[in-house]
């Protein structure tokens, strides 16, 4: 059994990390502290998950989210998608394994992956609306959010959602408020089967390797850890029984990376654009300085007058 985190202290404690521990800040430059905090991670073990949605409900309870009571639309999954007020969602996939002939019911807890190289943060135009702490948590700071939805485009996992009412981008915070006082995320706390565990990233990788060994012993030859390198690794990782085919799990991207379009848009493209604009202005100034104004002369006026007079 993974040792559960102790209960929180009853007295107020100083947060373990805060604004001084920023590694990245959207649309701004920060100087990261010299000492990076120990990287944390949440490990979601698909092979232990029973799809009970306790994580979903715990998330809503802790974060005081009240998504609408919707409809059944032919599957167990509900609500039908991530929402501004539904930050994590169990996605259910029925898959006939062609190799074994057995049905597998693949249940994946979807939510923010807390990428080491977060596409949302890269895309965000609002200074400080998205921050990354040195422990790896990527957090949305609502008061700085302008609701433009660029994070949605930047995210390789299709996670952020923009509220139609508050116009703020919302997603899993990895319970940064809980982690700051030594607690694990609410979902991990609520998970009855320890399919979700939380700790340092190194510990999570070690724990995962034990789980992968167990799965391999049960015939899942391609079991593995999902910690995609394309986004620099993630601070939410999955143990996948079929790690060779992540897309089986409700289209988990096989090789997620920040889309090159976003890279162009948010990378050198912007600098080049501003440069071009500045050059245009500069060219005008230089041209003016060199040529002076273009003025109609007395001569022009006379010629015009004579043209008009000639016609009269």
């Amino acid at each position, binding site marked *: 059994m993974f040792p559960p985190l102790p209960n929180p202290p009853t007295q107020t404690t100083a947060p373990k990390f805060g604004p001084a521990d920023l590694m990245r800040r959207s649309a701004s430059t920060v100087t990261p502290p010299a000492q990076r905090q120990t990287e944390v991670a949440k490990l979601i073990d698909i092979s232990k998950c*029973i799809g009970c949605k306790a994580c979903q409900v715990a998330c809503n309870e802790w974060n005081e989210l009240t998504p609408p009571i919707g409809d*059944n639309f*032919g599957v167990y999954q509900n609500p039908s998608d991530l929402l501004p007020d539904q930050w994590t969602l169990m996605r259910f996939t*029925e898959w006939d394994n062609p190799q074994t002939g057995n049905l597998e019911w693949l249940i994946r807890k979807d939510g923010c992956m807390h990428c080491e190289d977060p596409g949302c943060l890269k895309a965000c135009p609002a200074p400080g609306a998205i921050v990354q702490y040195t422990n790896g948590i990527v957090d949305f700071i609502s008061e700085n959010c302008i609701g433009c939805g660029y994070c949605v485009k930047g995210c390789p996992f299709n996670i952020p959602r923009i509220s139609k009412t508050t116009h703020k981008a919302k997603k899993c915070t990895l319970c940064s408020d809980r982690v700051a006082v030594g607690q694990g995320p609410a979902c991990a706390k609520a998970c009855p089967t320890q399919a979700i565990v939380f700790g340092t990233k190194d510990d999570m990788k070690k724990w995962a390797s034990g789980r992968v060994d*167990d799965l391999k012993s049960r015939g899942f030859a391609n079991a593995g850890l999902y910690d995609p390198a394309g986004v620099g690794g993630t601070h939410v990782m999955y143990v996948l029984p079929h790690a060779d085919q992540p897309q089986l799990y409700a289209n988990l991207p096989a090789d997620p990376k920040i889309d090159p379009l976003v890279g162009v848009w948010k990378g050198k493209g912007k600098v080049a654009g501003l440069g071009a604009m500045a050059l245009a202005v500069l060219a005008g100034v230089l041209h003016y300085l060199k040529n002076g104004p273009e003025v109609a002369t007395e001569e022009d006026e006379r010629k015009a007058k004579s043209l008009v007079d000639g016609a009269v």
Partner: protein
Amino acid sequence: MTNAWTDIKNTDLVVIMGGNAAEAHPCGFKWVTEAKATRGAKLVVVDPRFTRSAAVADYYAPIRQGTDIAFLFGVINYCMQNNKVQWEYLKSFTNAAFLVNDGFGWADGLFTGYDETKRDYDRSTWSYQIGPDGYALVDETLQNPRCVWNLLKEHVAKYTPEMVERICGTPKDKFLKIAAMIAETSSPTKAMTSMYALGWTQHSKGSQNIRTMAMLQLILGNIGIRGGGMNALRGHSNIQGLTDLGLMSNLIPGYLNIPKETEATFDAYMSTRAYKPLRPNQISYWQNYKKFFVSFMKSMWGDAATAENNWAYDYLPKLDVPDYDVLRAFDMAFNGKMNGYVMQGFNPLQAFPNKAKLAAGLSKLKFLVVIDPLETETARFWENHGPHNPADTKAIQTEVIQLPSTCFAEDEGSLVNSGRWLQWHWAAAAPPGKAMSDIWIMAQLHKRLKALYEKEGGALPDPIVKLKWPYANPDDPTPDEIAREMNGYTLSAQYDPKDATKMTLDKGKQLPGFAALKDDGSTACFCWIYSGCYTEAGNMMARRDNTDKDNVGLFPNWSYSWPANRRILYNRASADLNGKSWDASRKLIEWDGAKWSGYDVPDMLPTAKPQDVGPFIMNAEGTSRLFTLGMMREGPFPSHYEPFESPVANVIAPKIRGNPVARVFPNDLAQMANTGDAEYPYAATTYRLTEHFHYWTKNVYQNAVAQPEFFVEISEQLAKEKGVQHGGWVRVWSKRGSVNAKAVVTKRIKPLVCDGKAIHVVGIPIHWGFVGLTKPGYPANTLTPFVGDANTQTPEFKAFLVNIEAIAAPTA
């Protein structure tokens, strides 16, 4: 549970059949994932649907609902054929060697003594051969053709893998794979746990489903050991407490019985409760019945219960029928034979079968009292909610009184979990509005009834007028006071039986346990099995010490486990005939030459020699029973019976419909589809979803979000046949009612082939109604048949027949 939730981590093989632990018991299921993760245990799931449990199983096989006995007999047969038997355990700890009465037999699906008109048996031949010494005869070589083992062998021989496939629809290869996995646990160093729930109980032969698995577990030597056992997963947090406390019309707390009409005198009552040992040296603990009974009577009526008046035996009601279960009560209401109904934490309009009949019954009551923390459909049965509750309000004259009560988190008390742990809890919140605790409400009723009886007399006022009510505030007894009473206390000073001058316990002290109970009226205890839970040392149920020596999974200082804080029942059977553990790594208790000791409280007299005294001390044989004499209404062995509504005839006994001894009221039989009925061709089953708890959580916002709307599940094949769209609307109807629902079309239900016929399964979750935050929906009991298990009257919710069609979305 014979074992505890925490003990499941010790198993090698988890068999979930007749339940869906991941779905309905997700918190307890952690011990399954723990066993898998740390011991490499395997999980097998056998279910008509590929469930959430199956999602994390190592092996899954489908089964047609209501055919579990055939499947399990198939496994028993497989074990017998392949010598996968824990022989030493079988010979010493079961009644395999006992010789059975020559008159006993089985033919055409019936045991000897059947009376078709009474739908009951004369059970006189269901007995052992008794020797001249008064003890049962045994043949330890198992050679005698009349020994239980050989009779059982003959009885199960027809359940070949082919027959299992024919009855259950389980493909032979899948059946054999599972049989082989189970059979491996016949090794003394391997354990299998059986986790089951309503998937076994809610059948007209539910008790026999469980019994068949218990027999298999005994043959494999998996009872009484760590990681083994028969583990009933109880559906409510305190439903174990409900049965323990005898909240049945025929029970007294602690599994004592209410007398029958034929037992008019105390002597007559006790004469069938002597429990003389059937083998030499055996304990036959029920010999103490009188101590438990008298202590109960003293707890109830105090000084009014005396030796002279047979401990107030006459105060007890005498049953004129086997029991007044809920089905009978509603049948009586339906027939206008009931005036009033007091419902406490009970929503039968959703929870019992045939909603239309229930509503008709409720409509004929003069008054209905509903004591509940929540708004229930039952309390609102008279309201018209369109198709979801088509009541004719004007025609209903029933006066409904709602008394809002507290929820579990708003008062203190104990809850008994599936593992028999009495866990004390404390109030976490103040009750809302004018809600009052159930205790307060009952105290008020008591006070007023007592006053009425005192004033007006009546035929027999004594049971009420003389009821002992020893609470500091008679208007509001505290849970603590009641818990102390439950444990029991001395009415006079107790002395050492060996030295009459030595006082062991003064008057008015809490008893240390049920061993201290007396039949002389000097002790009072209203639930003997709980005795020990609140001693002079304090409230044992409130203990929260989670130390677990050597990680054995017993947690002996956490709360209190009845009986006697024993965590694993029959734990004596974890050791061999010499008292050594079968498996040293699974040590529970061992014999050290003088006494039993170990991790758990021995389920044995501490000084009883292992070679002499059998481990099943509650049984007169000292052994467990593969042959259960006359204790089950269907017979000493189980037998495969189809559900009352079945898509196919019983291939073992084609003439028999349903369970031949199950009670069916005539008007209900008329409302059942025939076997293989063309108008109702599909095999339906009902079940719970993890997102909801019965009919409560539809009142809770987050649960309503997680599963908002009523649906039914069908296979892709049936959907195609019926033109049903994924997420489209369907109408499902039985001979009793009709529901409209969203369709979840799934690969997780696949058509089965039974006796050459394709059987489509229709799955119907139960959670919706016309009260609550979820979208209004139909409860599953609109469809289900009004018949119960022959022994317990648990309704047959798991197997019945329906038809289905695609419909247009209803207009709002």
